[in-house]
């Protein structure tokens, strides 16, 4: 009985999703990007960090053997772009996972515990949300040393607050429902109730909101890299590639332009996918 309900929920959601051209477009973009990141060494025409023969290779315009031109070190822009997808996607994925994990745990505790614990947690969340994200991120980066893993961790650790609100709100509604009350009556412990009953029932909403958040996190990473506070060079990251083209905008517009377009396509992909998933699976939307 339970199985059929579950299956029909997922399959009817999947049917709704398939009929949404925007959502499908987002899914295609995101899947393609992961394939590109995975097979970058196979499809890339060159090496991402290898310097070409300077100065003859410097700032070659797009076309010929360098489809998107070369940068000031004579490196192939297309190659770096393809490899750069790895950084953006890994960062987006892991940082969001961290943020969802923290947010879900804190939100579950607040929503389930209620009372003074809930009030204290929610006030801290309010305060953290009042600090503009980039400033919070920059303050943390300033205080601790920089490395790619720290950046990923900080991107996640500074963006979990929205998840707390979401999970808490979901829990408050679910908590009152019969199956939870029944579990409590049967003597299930708090931990068991949170882990076995409350979290699985909020999972859909969490996943949807996480997908919608990835775009923002990728943009934040790009902004950090652009400021020179993100992933350290020479690892190709899109934001940093845009920065490198800054001084030669007029002479070599392609150095900045193409990585920017790559960021836009990626973020649009995630946003379309997230919107599509929400329209298809969010119970509030179609009830």
């Amino acid at each position, binding site marked *: 009985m339970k199985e059929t309900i579950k299956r029909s929920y997922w399959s009817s959601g999947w049917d709704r999703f398939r009929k949404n051209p925007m959502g499908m477009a987002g899914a295609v973009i995101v899947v393609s990007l992961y394939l590109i990141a995975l097979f970058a060494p196979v499809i890339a025409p060159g090496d991402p960090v290898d310097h070409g023969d300077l100065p003859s290779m410097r700032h070659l315009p797009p076309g010929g053997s360098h489809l998107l031109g070369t940068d000031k070190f004579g490196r192939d822009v297309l190659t770096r772009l393809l490899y750069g997808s790895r950084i953006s996607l890994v960062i987006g994925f892991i940082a969001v996972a961290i943020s969802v994990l923290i947010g879900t745990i804190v939100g579950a505790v607040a929503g389930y515990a209620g009372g003074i614990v809930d009030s204290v947690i929610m006030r801290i969340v309010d*305060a953290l949300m009042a600090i503009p994200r*980039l400033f919070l991120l920059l*303050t943390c980066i300033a205080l601790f040393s920089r490395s790619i893993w720290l950046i990923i961790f900080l991107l996640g650790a500074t963006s979990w607050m929205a998840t707390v609100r979401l999970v808490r709100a979901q829990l408050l509604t679910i908590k009152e429902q019969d199956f939870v009350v029944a579990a409590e009556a049967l003597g299930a412990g708090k931990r068991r109730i949170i882990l076995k009953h409350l979290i699985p029932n909020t999972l859909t909403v969490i996943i949807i909101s996480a997908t919608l958040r990835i775009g923002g996190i990728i943009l934040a990473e790009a*902004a950090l890299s652009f400021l020179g506070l993100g992933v350290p060079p020479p690892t190709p990251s899109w934001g940093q590639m845009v920065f490198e083209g*800054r001084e030669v905008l007029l002479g070599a517009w392609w150095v900045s332009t193409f990585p920017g377009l790559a960021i836009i396509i990626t973020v649009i992909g995630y946003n379309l996918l997230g919107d599509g998933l929400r329209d298809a699976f969010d119970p509030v939307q179609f009830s």
Partner: protein
Amino acid sequence: MTRFVAERLLQSVILVLIVLTITFFLMHLSPGDPMSRYDDPNISPETVRLIREQLGLDKPVPEQYMRWMASFLRGDFGVSLRFNRPVSSLLAEAIPNTLRLTIAALTLYIVIGVILGLLSAVRRYSLFDRLSTIAALFVYSIPSFWLALMLILLFSLKFEILPSSHMQSMGVSGMGWLARFSDRIAHLVLPAFVLGVASAAGMARYMRGSMLDVLREDYIRTARAKGLSERSVFLKHAFRNAAIPIVTIIGLSLPFLLGGAVIIEKIFSWPGMGALMVDSIFARDYPVVLAVNFVVTVMVILGNLAADIGYALLDPRIASGRKAGK
């Protein structure tokens, strides 16, 4: 109403205190002793001990916390390690510049957003409406630094019609006030546009939804039934009511605008708090970093408070409805 304002005020004060506490923790979590810059063979241990005492670093942590909190609330943020000047004087220079940029962006995005939103609502499901939905999605996904560079490439480098950096031209002081004024405006156009454009997209979507909601109300039907022109129904009846929630949106957009200002100020060499923040990070000037972070957050909290109160003034149901509900 007074009660509502008092409650919100108290909440804001608590919020500021929590932010202060978080800042204090961040400072203590960070590696390195604040005294490490006195690690110098020419300074005697006795002097170091005296400085330590003077800074209150020999006191227990709770007492340090209280003292530090009191000085922060008084606006005493310590001394910048880089400039050897009080942080408050650096802030006094940077804050007005950031405000000028943010307010320009705010004005710009409200005007653009409201107009686009209204047009979308009037012509719902038209080509214009569809295009602006797609445009909004696109604008949301553009990194602001990239957009800034592209506009600089186009308007400053290719066509040379707008300046690409700083708040005013060199040698502007010799000109008349009109020339000076238009010079300042010209310098403001690109940064304010880039900073505001994403919010404009959000505002347009919001305005459209709000307008469509209001148009379903009974009093709109009544207004139409009275034989009023569509124009008057739209602007006098629907728009006035649909515009009230905008106040909240403005409050919510503040962290976004101030955060965006970091990048914009850096690109356009705009001497505001964002640029100060980034430069201080590179210089490891912690007192400045923490102070900027705190001041920006207080600005956001104050902005939200003002928005809430403004909303309650425009729509009295909020303050009284809350009392009745609780």
